[in-house]
C-alpha cells in the first residue's frame, strides 16, 4: 500500500531530513562483495498507557522510541550497530561498525527501488488517537465498576489500557524498501477475591491491531471484567490438583500455548539450521497423530500476532508446520532460510531497531477436527480438564516443555467435576502431539494477550487450538 509507505516516510524519515540519496549511501556503505545481505531498519514507536487501581486512575504514561538498526551479514556472521540519532554521521558510523564483520571489499552501491505491493491486515492508524483520553478513562471506570458489582467477594481490581503505534521502514541490499504501520491495543483486568481466610487472584484481557473502539464493541471490555471475576471465584473453591501422568483435555483458544511451547519454538529455523532442536533433520517424519495440522499464520486480519510484512520486509504467510501429523516445515528469517537453502517464510522478527531479527512465531494454531467438545469430555473416565493457562517454557534441545494451568477441573466418569488449583503440566514436544487422540471442531484463537520471549527479545504473538484430548501429560499437583 503506497498509503503505508507514505505514512512511514513522513513519520520516520521526514523529521530527520534524510534524503533518498542518504538512504542509498547508507545501504551502499553496508554493502560489499564480502556481504551476502544487509539492511537498515528505521523505527518510530509511540505508546500510551493508563492504569486504574483502588477505583481511581492512578497512573498514565507516554513513551516514544525511535532509531535505526544497521545489519550486515556474511555467511553465518552478522555485524550490527544501532543509533537513536537519525542523522548521517551517527548512522554512517553505525554502518561502518556493522560492515566490519566481513573484512575486505569496497563499499558497494545500491539503489533502492519501489516497494512491492503488500497485505493490509490492519489499518495504518494510530490507536492512541482512536478515542479521546477522557473516554479511555471512562472505559476503565466502567470496567472497574462491572468487576466490583459482580460479587461482594471482589476486594481489588486493577485494570490497564495500552495503545501503541509502531512504524517501521526497512531498506535492504536487494534494493527493496518496505514499510508497515502497526497499531496494537490491549486491555487487562486483574481481580483479587477474598472469602474467609482464602484469597485468590485472576486476570483476563484482550486486544488486537485495531482502534480502541474494538474494546467497546460487543461488550468486550466488560466481558473481560466478568471473566476475571469468574475465574478468581473458581480458584477460591479449588482444591489440591492431582499429581502424575494422566489424560488431559485442553480447552480451546489460549491453551494453544501447548503448541507454542511443545512444537513452536522447536520449529524455528535458527535452532534447526544449527541442529540444536529436537526437531532438527526430521522433515518428512511423523511428529503428531494423524489429523493434527499445525500452522503459523501471520496473515490473520487484525490479530495481535499478525504482520503485513515481517521486520525484514518479507510478506508474512500461512506456513504449514505439521500436516496430518507429518513435519513439513520450519519458520525462517532471511539468514537461516539462505543457510538452509529454502525460501524465507516471513517470520523474521525483532523487538526493536536495537535488536537483531531472528525466526519468531506469529499466530500459531492447530486446525479444527471433527469432534464435539462435549463428546471429548464424555470420553474421559478420569483426567484433568484445563481451560486457562498462565504461560509456558521449553527446552528445545531435550524437547521438554511446561505450561501452567490457571483454571482446571477434575474429569470423573466423563463429567466435569470439582475445580483444582493451577498445576504445571510437563511433556515432551516431539511426542506429546502423537498422543492427541481427539480433536474438537471448536477452533478458537486467544483474545490477543500473548507475548513471546526468546533470547531476551519480546514480541506479540497469538495462539489457538480446538478442544483437544491428550493421552498422557504429567500434571504437577500435590495430591499423589
Amino acid at each position, binding site marked *: 500500500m503506497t498509503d503505508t509507505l507514505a505514512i512511514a516516510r513522513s513519520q520516520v524519515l521526514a523529521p530527520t531530513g534524510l534524503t533518498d540519496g542518504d538512504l542509498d549511501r547508507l545501504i551502499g556503505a553496508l554493502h560489499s562483495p564480502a556481504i551476502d545481505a544487509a539492511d537498515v531498519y528505521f523505527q518510530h514507536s509511540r505508546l500510551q498507557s493508563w492504569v486504574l487501581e*483502588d477505583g481511581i486512575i492512578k497512573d*498514565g504514561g507516554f513513551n516514544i522510541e525511535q532509531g535505526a538498526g544497521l545489519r550486515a551479514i556474511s555467511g553465518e556472521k552478522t555485524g550490527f550497530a544501532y543509533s537513536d540519532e537519525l542523522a548521517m554521521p551517527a548512522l554512517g558510523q553505525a554502518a561502518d561498525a556493522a560492515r566490519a564483520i566481513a573484512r575486505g571489499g569496497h563499499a558497494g552501491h545500491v539503489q533502492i527501488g519501489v516497494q512491492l505491493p503488500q497485505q493490509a491486515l490492519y489499518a495504518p492508524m494510530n490507536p492512541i488517537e482512536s478515542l479521546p483520553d477522557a473516554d479511555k478513562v471512562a472505559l476503565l471506570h466502567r470496567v472497574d465498576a462491572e468487576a466490583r458489582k459482580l460479587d461482594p467477594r471482589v476486594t481489588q481490581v*486493577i485494570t490497564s489500557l495500552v495503545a501503541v503505534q509502531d512504524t517501521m521502514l526497512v531498506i535492504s541490499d536487494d534494493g527493496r524498501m518496505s514499510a508497515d504501520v502497526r497499531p496494537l491495543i490491549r486491555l487487562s483486568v486483574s481481580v483479587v477475591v477474598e472469602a474467609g481466610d482464602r484469597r485468590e487472584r485472576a486476570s483476563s484481557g484482550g486486544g488486537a491491531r485495531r482502534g480502541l473502539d474494538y474494546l467497546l464493541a460487543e461488550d468486550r471490555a466488560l466481558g473481560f471484567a466478568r471473566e476475571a471475576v469468574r475465574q478468581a471465584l473458581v480458584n477460591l473453591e479449588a482444591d489440591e490438583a492431582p499429581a502424575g*501422568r494422566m489424560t488431559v483435555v485442553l480447552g480451546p483458544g489460549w491453551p494453544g500455548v501447548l503448541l507454542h511451547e511443545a512444537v513452536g519454538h522447536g520449529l524455528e529455523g535458527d535452532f534447526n539450521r544449527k541442529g540444536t532442536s529436537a526437531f532438527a533433520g526430521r522433515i518428512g517424519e511423523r511428529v503428531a497423530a494423524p489429523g493434527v495440522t499445525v500452522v503459523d499464520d501471520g496473515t490473520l486480519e487484525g490479530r495481535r500476532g499478525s504482520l503485513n510484512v515481517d521486520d525484514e520486509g518479507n510478506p508474512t504467510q500461512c506456513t504449514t508446520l505439521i500436516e496430518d501429523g507429518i513435519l513439513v516445515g520450519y519458520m525462517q528469517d532471511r539468514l537461516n532460510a539462505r543457510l538452509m537453502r529454502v525460501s524465507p517464510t516471513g517470520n523474521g522478527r525483532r523487538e526493536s531497531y536495537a535488536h*537483531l531479527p531472528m525466526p519468531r512465531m506469529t499466530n500459531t494454531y492447530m486446525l479444527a477436527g471433527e469432534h464435539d467438545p462435549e463428546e471429548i469430555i464424555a470420553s474421559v473416565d478420569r483426567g484433568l480438564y484445563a481451560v486457562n493457562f498462565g504461560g509456558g517454557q521449553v527446552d528445545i534441545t531435550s524437547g521438554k516443555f511446561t505450561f501452567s494451568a490457571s483454571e482446571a477441573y477434575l474429569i470423573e466418569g466423563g463429567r466435569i467435576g470439582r475445580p483444582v488449583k*493451577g498445576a504445571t503440566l510437563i511433556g515432551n514436544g516431539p511426542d506429546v502431539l502423537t498422543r492427541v487422540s481427539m480433536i474438537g471442531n471448536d477452533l478458537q484463537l486467544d483474545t490477543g494477550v500473548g507475548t513471546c520471549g526468546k533470547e531476551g527479545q519480546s514480541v506479540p504473538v497469538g495462539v489457538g487450538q480446538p478442544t483437544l484430548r491428550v493421552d498422557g501429560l504429567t500434571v504437577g499437583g500435590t495430591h499423589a
Partner: protein
Amino acid sequence: MSITDPHPAALADSDKGQLEQLQQIIDDLLGEARRRGASAAEAVVSNSTGLEVGVRLGEVETVEHTRDHGLGVTVYFGHRKGSASTSDLSRAALRDAVAQACTIATHTQEDPCNGLPPAELMANAIPDLDLSHPWAISVDDAVRLAILCEDAARADDPRITNSEGASVSTHAGLQVYGNSNGFIGGYPSTRHSLSCAVVADDGDGMQRDYWWSSARAAEDLEEAAAVGRRAAERAVARLGGRSIGTCKVPILFQAMLAAGLLRHLAAAISGDNIYRKTSFLLERLGEQLFPSGFTLSEEPHKPRGLASAPFDSDGVATRPQAFVEDGVLTGWSLGHYAACRLGLQSTGNAGGLRNMRVPLGEHDRDGMLRLLGTGLYVTDLMGQGVNGVTGDYSRGASGFWVEDGIIQYPVEEITIASNLKDMYANLVAIGNDCDFPGSTTTGSWLIEEMTIAGS
C-alpha cells in the same frame, strides 16, 4: 540545586563530562515541569554503550555495538501524577516528554500517596561502591576470549557434539536521578559477562546446558576455559535423563535455584504486594517463617556488587538491613509509595532487594547430598507455576535421583509441587556451596518434602 558528587577519584574526566551533561538534562526536565505548573517532579536519565560478541563452532557469529539513551519524567500536580519516557535526549524531545506527562496528569486522579519522599530520606551522601571498571577490549580480543571459552567446552568431553556458542559482552553506563526537592545523584557503572551453551549427545538424545560469569570488573570474571568446561559438564550430566514415578520425598535445591526461592520471598515481602494484599505472607509479620538461625539480609553497598546501588529508584538512601531474623519475618521491603499506603516509612527498597544474602551452613555439596539421603537433587526448573497470592508452587524440574547420598541417574520431565509457606517452614539446612554467579549469596537448600509428579 545541590549536586552530590560521587567520590572524585572514581570518575574519569570523560565520565565527569557526561555526568554533567546528564545532570543538565535533569535540570532542564525539572525546569520544564515547573514552567508547566507541576508542583513536583522527578526524572531519571541514562546512557550506555557496549559491545556483544558471539562465536559458534570456533568462528565469530555476531558482533553487536550497542548505544542506548533514555529519559523518564514523572510530574505531580498536587497528588495527581503523569509519566513519560523517550530514548531521544534532544531538547525538543525533552519538552515533548514533559508536555505529554502533564497532559496525562490532567486525567489521572488524586492519590494521597503520590509524591516525592521526605527530603531527610534521600541519599545525601553517595558512597563510592566501586561499580565502574570500563573494559577496553577490542572486537578481535573479545572474539578470541569467546572462542577460548567455547573451545574448552567442546574439548571437555567427546559427547559434546554441537554448540549454541559462547559470548563476551561489556557495557558501560551512567545514570542520574533528580527531583524537585533538590536531590540529584548519579554514578557510572559497568557490567561484563562471559557465557557458553553447548549440546551433548550420546546417540540416544540431545541435552543442552550453559554456564556464565558476570562482574563489574573484567578481572573478577571467572576464567573463560573454566566457564566453558562447566557448561560442558552440566550438559553431559543430563544425558540419559528419565522420568520417575510420582512420590513425596525430600528435595535438595542446587544453590543457583535456591536463589530463586529467595526471589519469591523478596516479592512476597515487597510493599507493593503487601498493600495490594497479593502476598501469601500478608498476615505473617512478626511470625516464625523459617527455622531459627535463618536470616535474609541485603547488602546494597557491597563494593562491586552486581546489584549494588547508593539509592533506590525513588532516590532514597539504601542501607544494609535484614528482613528475616532468626527465622522471624521482621519487616517489609518498601519504596516510598507502598510505605505511605501502609503508614510506614520507606526502607530504600523501591526496585527490590539488592545483593541478598542468607547465612551459609556447614556442609558442602556432597555433605548436603548425604543429608538428603534418598530423594531428588534439583538442578533446573522450568515454567511459571508460582502463585504469589497463595504461595502455591508447581514447576517443571530436572535433576538427579539420589540414594543414600549418592547420585544415581539424571531425571527430567517431572514437576515438583508444594506451597512456599511449607517449603520455608521445612527448610532443613543450607549448604556452603555458594558456587554460582549473580548477586545473591546462598548455598543449596534442603527441603523436607515436596510432591514429585512423574510417569
